[in-house]
């Protein structure tokens, strides 16, 4: 089940392989969630094969999201390493009491007498016509909760390493898996390059990748993105080079909480401008925290305010045309970069 088995694999296959690997490495790893058993292996098939190989460590559950995360917390405190699969990220809302008033509190509230090494994996994101309750990007509801870790996958991250890091982490981790990403091939930099971009990747379990179209020369702007917005940011950067001869850097984060913005600040030192990109709704989205931190840490280096590109503050409609209008796209990113010279404060 090594990562290098096949040259091109869909992201969901890599996640699946990493889960198999985690089950092999740790006796304590258990998977709990809905519709996990083979031949189905979870609604997005990320859990395929696990129940066949480890029938006593894959626990398919009733539809009881409010309890699942609490059950996992109990398992984790007692020495197991549970992984919870919440079928759609929208349903994380049902678990938030356990997250806010339990999982995130136990270690500190119990004076470090316990650890809660659990992983909650859940798919987020739209663009599949699933409508208002099956398309959201609700990671914003988690990033404000102290003492947990929130990690986002993207197709250019080493997903095998990322999933492994989450499982090995002694803190509770919420792993946000983008739905559209599942079906796309994982693409990794080779020789420090990917798709014509020069790439730098930070060290540590939850790396950020910085992509530059001109070998980290002067840039017009930095776009910080995560999850499903990463390929869109890359496409925007490519089109800006081709169509406008503007060079942008793209920073693809994996750790949303704790937030380590050093790669963003480093890029902003070259570009002097930052655009945050996220698929969730604008207000109090992840971009708000990034903007608040960067305007403070890089006040003297910003030649324009931090701009946020996000979904409008409303529902994600079901009809494809309405959904596309609602979600942030490549054109929105390009527009944000090209209007950087415009009047500040015009749009939020």
């Amino acid at each position, binding site marked *: 089940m090594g990562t290098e088995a096949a040259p091109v694999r869909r992201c969901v296959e890599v996640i699946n392989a990493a889960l198999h690997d985690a089950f092999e490495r740790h006796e304590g790893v258990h998977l709990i969630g809905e519709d996990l058993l083979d031949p189905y292996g979870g*609604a997005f098939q990320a859990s395929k094969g696990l129940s066949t190989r480890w029938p006593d460590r894959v626990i*398919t559950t009733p539809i009881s999201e409010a309890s699942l995360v609490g059950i996992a917390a109990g398992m984790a405190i007692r020495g197991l390493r549970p992984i919870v699969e919440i079928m759609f990220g929208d349903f994380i809302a049902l678990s938030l009491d356990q997250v806010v008033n339990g999982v995130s509190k136990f270690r500190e509230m119990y004076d470090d007498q316990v650890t809660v090494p659990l992983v909650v994996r859940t798919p987020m994101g739209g663009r599949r016509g699933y409508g*208002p309750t099956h398309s959201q990007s609700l990671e914003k509801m988690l990033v404000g909760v102290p003492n947990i870790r929130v990690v986002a996958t993207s197709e250019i991250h080493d997903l095998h390493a990322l999933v492994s890091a989450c499982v090995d982490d002694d803190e509770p981790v919420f792993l946000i898996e983008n739905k559209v990403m599942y079906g796309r091939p994982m693409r990794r930099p080779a020789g420090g390059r990917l798709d014509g971009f020069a790439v730098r990747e930070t060290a540590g379990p939850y790396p950020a990748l910085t992509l530059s179209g001109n070998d980290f020369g002067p840039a017009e702007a930095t776009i910080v993105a995560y999850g499903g917005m990463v390929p869109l940011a890359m496409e925007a950067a490519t089109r800006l080079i081709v169509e406008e001869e503007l060079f942008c850097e793209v920073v693809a984060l994996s750790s949303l909480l704790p937030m380590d913005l050093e790669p963003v600040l480093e890029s902003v030192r070259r570009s002097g401008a930052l655009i945050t990109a996220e698929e969730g709704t604008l207000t109090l989205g992840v971009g708000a925290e990034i903007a608040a931190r960067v305007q403070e840490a890089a006040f003297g280096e910003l030649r324009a305010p931090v701009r946020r590109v996000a979904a409008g503050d409303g529902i994600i409609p079901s*009809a494809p045309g309405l959904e596309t209008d609602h979600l942030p796209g490549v054109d929105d990113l390009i527009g944000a970069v090209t209007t950087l010279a415009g009047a500040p404060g015009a749009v939020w």
Partner: protein
Amino acid sequence: MSLRGPGPAAIRPPGVVGYIPPVTWTPRPLPPVADLHRRMYGIRRFEETLLEMFSKGLLVGTTHTCIGQEADAVGVIDHLDPARDLVVSNHRCHGHFLAFTGDRLGLLAEVMGRTAGVSGGRGGSQHLCAPNFYTNGIQGSIVPLTTGMALAQKREGAGGIATVFIGDGTLGQGVVYECLNMASLWELPLLIVVEDNLYAQTTPRALAVAGSVPARAEAFGVAAELITTTDVRQIHAAAGRGVEHIRATGAPYLLGIETYRLAAHSKGDDTRDPAEIEGRREQDPLAVTASLLDPDERTRIESACEEDLARTVELAHAAPVAGVAA
């Protein structure tokens, strides 16, 4: 001296029990089988059409058909008065919607993402709204919603009933029991219909539902009945008992219907043994009613349905697409 506290008779929830109890209703006799067949056939063909459109790539997103379970929608909803009763449904809601509203075009346009859809294309298959009809795609969360609506109906005093349809899998959600408790305490006109099709998505009931479904209601003081049938006449009779109980006492009721879903959970995701599904086809609710009908009458009914449906499909196709500038 007993340690028991004041009993329910001594203390009533003052906030709710004081309301005027509902009074007038006429029990619904069983409609002619031809009529029931027509309604169920209309639902069946509507949903088969959706699946065809999906397989042709004409639809995107998701859909959950009630193929095999049409008798539940038709048998229960016949008892409801669209003017004063209301229905809340889940992901598998097309049958309930059509049985309650009859608005084929509004539903098809919605699933097709047209502005003429009942939710303007915003909601899609799982998020329908029409007068006295609401659906949502979060399992379980519709039960509190319906409980609140039942409370409003009790407050209104017009004798309306709030009916919510949930599946066996949704019995896993704790809010169901929170609401059984409150509906019981507050004596709300709430009808919970559990369509137990033996599976939740891919999960067989035995892996998700311990104990007994009616006992779960009765433990909260809610009257309950479980029937195992796809015969719309039996379902109509059982639903009549439930509705009568609510109209007469004002108190809630749970009706469990053991049935079977003949199509996939949504589109192609079926992990059940094909032989098992085949074995269930003889209980297809349409087979039950068809066997009772004169073949000519049946043909007449079904052809009329097909014509209606074809017209609906045409109209929906012609309707403006939501979110696309004209």
